[in-house]
């Protein structure tokens, strides 16, 4: 079975700034593998250990993203692919899904695509569904357990962990699955493997390799601003805890918060 795991590199925290050209400035913030994608990588590895075949970790971004691709290789991914092109810089989530769909079609033999439920920077959760539509494949989002994955019958059974309910869903393969945090416990890459993959060549496909022509996005960022500052708060003073608590409750009741 050939499993592709889509992985994105993100800033460790979101204390980002906004550049004059409205791009995001994450300078000085450590770049890590998107947390939810780490679960997707682990899930891909576990099924690969059971079923054999390949696990390709695929990312769309600048060359610096090879660092996190290497981390996935050190965790145990068998193959890697980076989609990188200057024209990808301003892609929105639908544009990114279009490019990744082209790459998956070009790979040709993919049975399952895994990704995190969302990236922790963009936070939309749109990538998986958009990718599935562009591939023409079924989608299973917010999956907290893959109960069955069968290459012969081309079937997957998974649990979708929604806010208040768990849905068991069956689907045919190939399919796109996005995963939530409870699905597994990602492994740490071993030092030995980190060394072994340090010099592995990571193939790069450009827009031309994918046969992609420029396409204007259906929506664009017209403005980006930091959030309005919160009104200055106050530290409640009092002789003792009981007095502070009474003052707090007074204030909450006066402002009809409670």
């Amino acid at each position, binding site marked *: 079975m050939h499993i592709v795991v889509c992985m994105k590199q993100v800033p460790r925290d*979101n204390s980002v700034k906004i550049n004059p050209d409205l791009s995001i400035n994450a300078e000085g913030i450590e770049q890590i593998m998107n947390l939810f994608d780490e679960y997707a990588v682990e899930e891909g590895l576990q099924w690969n250990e059971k079923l054999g075949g390949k696990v390709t970790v695929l990312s769309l971004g600048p060359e610096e993203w090879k660092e996190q691709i290497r981390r996935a290789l050190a965790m145990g991914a068998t193959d890697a692919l980076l989609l990188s092109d200057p024209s990808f810089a301003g892609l929105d989530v*639908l544009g990114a899904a279009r490019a990744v769909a082209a790459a998956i079609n070009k790979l040709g033999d993919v049975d399952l695509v895994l990704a995190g439920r969302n990236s922790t920077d963009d936070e939309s959760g749109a990538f998986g*569904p958009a990718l599935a539509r562009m591939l023409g494949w079924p*989608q299973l989002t917010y999956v907290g357990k893959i109960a069955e994955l069968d290459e012969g019958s081309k079937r997957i059974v998974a649990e979708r962990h929604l806010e208040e309910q768990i849905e068991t869903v069956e689907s045919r393969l190939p399919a796109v699955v996005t995963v939530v945090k409870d699905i597994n416990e990602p492994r740490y890459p071993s030092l030995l493997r980190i060394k072994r993959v340090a010099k592995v060549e990571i193939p790069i496909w450009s827009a031309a390799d994918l046969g992609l022509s420029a396409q204007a996005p259906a929506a664009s960022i*017209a403005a980006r601003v930091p959030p309005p500052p919160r009104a200055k*708060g106050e530290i409640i003073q009092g002789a003792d805890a009981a007095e*502070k608590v009474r003052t707090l409750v007074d204030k*909450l009741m006066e402002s009809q918060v409670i």
Partner: protein
Amino acid sequence: MPNEIWVLIEKARHSDNIAAISRELLGKGRQLADAAGTQLAALVLGSGMGALAERAFAYGADKAYVVDDAALAQYTTDGFVGAAAALAKKYQPALILSGASFQMRDFSAALAAELGVGLAIDATNVTIEGEQISAVRPSHGGNVINTIAFGAARPAVVAARKQSWPEAQEQAGRSGEVVQESMPGVEIRTKVTNVSPKQGAVNLADAAIIVSGGRGLGSPENYFKLIPPLAEALGGAYGASRAIVDAGWIPYEHQVGQTGKTVSPKLYMAVGISGAIQHLAGMRTSRTIVAINKDADAPIFRVASYGLVGDASEIVPLLTEEIKKRAGR
């Protein structure tokens, strides 16, 4: 007349009414439709859900497009996106509004990709100025507020964050036009074989009041002794920082923050939470924030509306009692 504004209607989980999010969207949709001089239509997809159209009229819709089909008894991406896309192609609405629950994110993203149109998920505002439709959506844990300008392709697809607008008020005697449509011939490739309630589900996103605890509480025993009783006295839900979820004090369901839930309640109380940026990402848009922490320099105080510096073990039981006594719960 300009093209219509559509709202995808969801049924309330525990009643026959439409869901709170749908009432919110109808309220906002009504405003937008009036300003643009167009009609507001409810999109009712389901099986045996036709009565929801009448409810949508009571909350401001002029019209309802209803697809009543056994194939829509359960949400599936193929079924819902197939039906919505077919109707959108036929009637060309300007805008389709939905909620932004997991299911609705699954729906709206697939719908936008299917139609090749623009998308804004987790929108907190939508505006229409002449031909320009725009949406505001936070990203990066609320540190970046994006204005998304939709291009000419229609419909604009917008999945809105809960509690962004007031709910529409019910108006007795309103009615509207029902347009019955049949289910298009789409193949539904996924099959829902079981739905079960989540054990100990906490829908933090729905809670008007949330009390969260963190590592400053010292132990899981302390957390459970202090936090749930305070939440209960306030009629709210209880949450947690990532640190104590990772430490195994409480399930992931309760986690607020960058890799947990993003919440925006009327009142958020952070007890023994220092306020790491990842936690702030999940709660900084709460209307009123109360922080209780023994470290006066904790970053949480920078976003707090009210701060209490002191020992949670002493303060919280007093607070719980005071609220029970004064707020009459």
